[in-house]
């Protein structure tokens, strides 16, 4: 499907000084904002996407990859220094990172987080590069019936895995689908639920909805909690011993099995749509602790705990792109944002991506590899600097983030109408989060909605409305059975959780 020359050309495109500069800028920005509690890489990506408009696709995607990867490293800084994770998946890192920092070894803790994060990330990138093209070939053999069944399967997994109740998960998904049905009907091209606003004819813009729900709603929440007591500067006291400021090779090597386990867990969970990096980090941490000869040392500053968490949560990022690139299904909010960036730059994720834009895809892979090295380098130099970032006051961070979102969405949607939609969805997102409804499910359902409806319409056209034709497709049948099994399993799991 993709010949060797395309692969080489793609990597050749990526490894240029021009793209390196964008990766570098993205990593610096990602580490910077990742270090700010409450911002994180998702919000940074959401804000950054519209600013990549004027760029060619490869540097734009390389920049965003840098932001995403850098954000994961930056997220560990406040987790270690303040016990306040910059990102939810860094929460497990705080369990041993913070005690280590309190022992006077903040740099050792943040460096261990950096090294294990880059190790896990590189592992999952290699898996992504190796398996995605063969998976895409398999996916290409799927017809509309199989695609529709796959969509149903993706929904069944999403609804079950995120959120504290199946019913609330279903509501989030249904609400997302309802929002996605605004605009043109994909089969008949007639206006639907636009209420006289012809700006809505092309549907709600993904940047408006995603940035409103993920970035602005979170900023609104954080603004309401601010009471004029600006965050104090963090003073992580150092012992003065040079050995406490670095991670020796022996220490790194002693964590090799922990990191390998973490990276494997993160890669497997990341490849499944809907399982976040937070789950991977905690699962890896728990398994490392359970398998340790000294479990009592965990939670008291054990570097194995940091290695377990960071290698797992970073490995999820690369693996998340497996369903996205091969099937066009975003497995996480980060992947949903990357998809919107792809679409802005004319890329249509899915199995045809490898055939139509193989060179660009391998350029993306090259940029990812490059970003790992840059992440390591910038992290080594920048960790001391990011410590100061943690102490920047919320007042300037949130007011600036709001202005950037306004400008970014205005550029992405060509005007203030998109900004208004963003604010409306910010309020919806704030209320949904307040009442315990999953925004992740909403966003992913919103993205999948039109594709789902289109595949159903195509399936009906292909079978003349005879749904029994599904029984003749073993793949579709297997996917539908898997959907039922996963829903039943999640229902049981949820019931058990409630009983406990």
């Amino acid at each position, binding site marked *: 499907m993709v010949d060797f020359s395309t692969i080489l050309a793609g990597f050749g495109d990526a490894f240029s000084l021009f793209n390196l500069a964008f990766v570098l800028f993205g990593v610096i920005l990602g580490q910077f904002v990742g270090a700010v509690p409450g911002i994180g890489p998702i919000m940074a990506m959401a804000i950054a996407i519209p600013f990549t408009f004027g760029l060619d696709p490869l540097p734009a995607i390389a920049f965003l990859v840098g932001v995403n990867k850098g954000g994961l490293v930056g997220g560990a800084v406040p987790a270690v220094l303040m016990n306040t994770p910059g990102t939810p998946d860094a929460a497990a890192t705080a369990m041993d990172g913070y005690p280590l920092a309190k022992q006077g070894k903040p740099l050792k803790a943040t460096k261990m987080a950096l090294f294990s994060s880059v190790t896990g990330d590189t592992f999952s990138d290699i898996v992504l590069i190796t398996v995605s093209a063969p998976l895409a070939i398999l996916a290409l053999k799927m017809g509309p019936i199989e695609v529709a069944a796959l969509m149903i399967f993706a929904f069944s997994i999403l609804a079950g895995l995120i959120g504290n109740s199946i019913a609330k998960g*279903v509501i989030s998904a249904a609400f997302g689908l*309802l929002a996605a049905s605004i605009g043109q009907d994909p089969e008949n091209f007639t206006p639907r639920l636009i209420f006289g606003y012809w700006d809505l004819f092309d549907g709600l813009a993904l940047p408006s909805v995603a940035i409103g729900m993920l970035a602005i709603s979170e900023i609104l929440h954080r603004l*309401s909690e601010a009471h004029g*007591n600006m965050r104090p500067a963090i003073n992580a006291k150092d012992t003065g011993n040079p050995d406490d400021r670095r991670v020796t090779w022996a220490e790194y090597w002693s964590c090799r099995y922990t990191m390998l386990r973490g990276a494997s867990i993160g890669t497997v969970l990341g490849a499944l749509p809907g399982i976040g990096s937070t789950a991977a980090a905690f699962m890896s941490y728990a398994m490392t602790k359970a398998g340790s000869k000294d479990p009592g040392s965990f939670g008291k500053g054990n570097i194995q705990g940091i290695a377990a968490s960071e290698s797992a949560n970073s490995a999820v990022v690369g693996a998340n792109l497996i369903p996205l690139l091969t099937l066009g299904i975003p497995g996480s909010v980060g992947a949903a944002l990357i998809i919107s960036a792809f679409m802005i730059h004319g890329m249509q994720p899915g199995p045809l991506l490898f055939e139509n834009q193989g060179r660009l895809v391998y350029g993306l892979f090259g940029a990812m590899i490059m970003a790992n090295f840059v992440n390591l380098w910038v992290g080594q130099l920048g960790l001391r600097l990011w410590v100061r970032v943690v102490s920047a006051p919320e007042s300037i961070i949130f007011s*600036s983030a709001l202005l950037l979102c306004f*400008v970014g969405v205005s550029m992405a949607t060509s005007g203030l109408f998109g900004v208004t939609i963003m604010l409306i969805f910010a309020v919806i997102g704030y209320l949904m989060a307040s009442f315990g409804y999953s925004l992740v499910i909403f966003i992913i359902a919103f993205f999948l909605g039109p594709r789902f409806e289109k595949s159903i319409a195509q399936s009906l056209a292909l079978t003349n409305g005879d749904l029994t034709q599904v029984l003749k497709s073993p793949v579709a049948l297997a996917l539908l059975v898997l959907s039922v099994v996963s829903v039943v399993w999640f229902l049981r799991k949820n019931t058990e959780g409630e009983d406990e």
Partner: protein
Amino acid sequence: MSTLSDRISGLFFMAMGLAMYFWVNPNYIETVEGGNLSPSTLPNIISIILASAGAFVAIKPTTHRLRNPVLMAKTGLYVALLTGGIWAMSWFGFEYVAPVLALAIMWLIGERRPLWLGLGVVAMPALIWFLVTQLLGRALP
């Protein structure tokens, strides 16, 4: 209190699903002759699912705790401010409204230090202006 929040949200989604099914979808979705999938099919199915799941949440609520209502009211204040900001931008443009909006937000948070206020009100909007109009060559809202 914790079950009340789920009952309220469940009833809201139930009412929304019913309103969509019986009133909004019939009135705001065009009917089309022929075709395999009517434009209203998916919205109608979703509306039914929404109403059913909403009823389920209302009948069997979880123990989710609602955010502090005082903080939610405070959020309403910020939403009103941002709405005003968007409205003002449509009349006066980003260049004039952004510094005022930034100042209002920072002031409401409780920032009073001149250096940080200067950075947020002057430096940041100026940086955005430079980035968007000069470097990217795009128009500000």
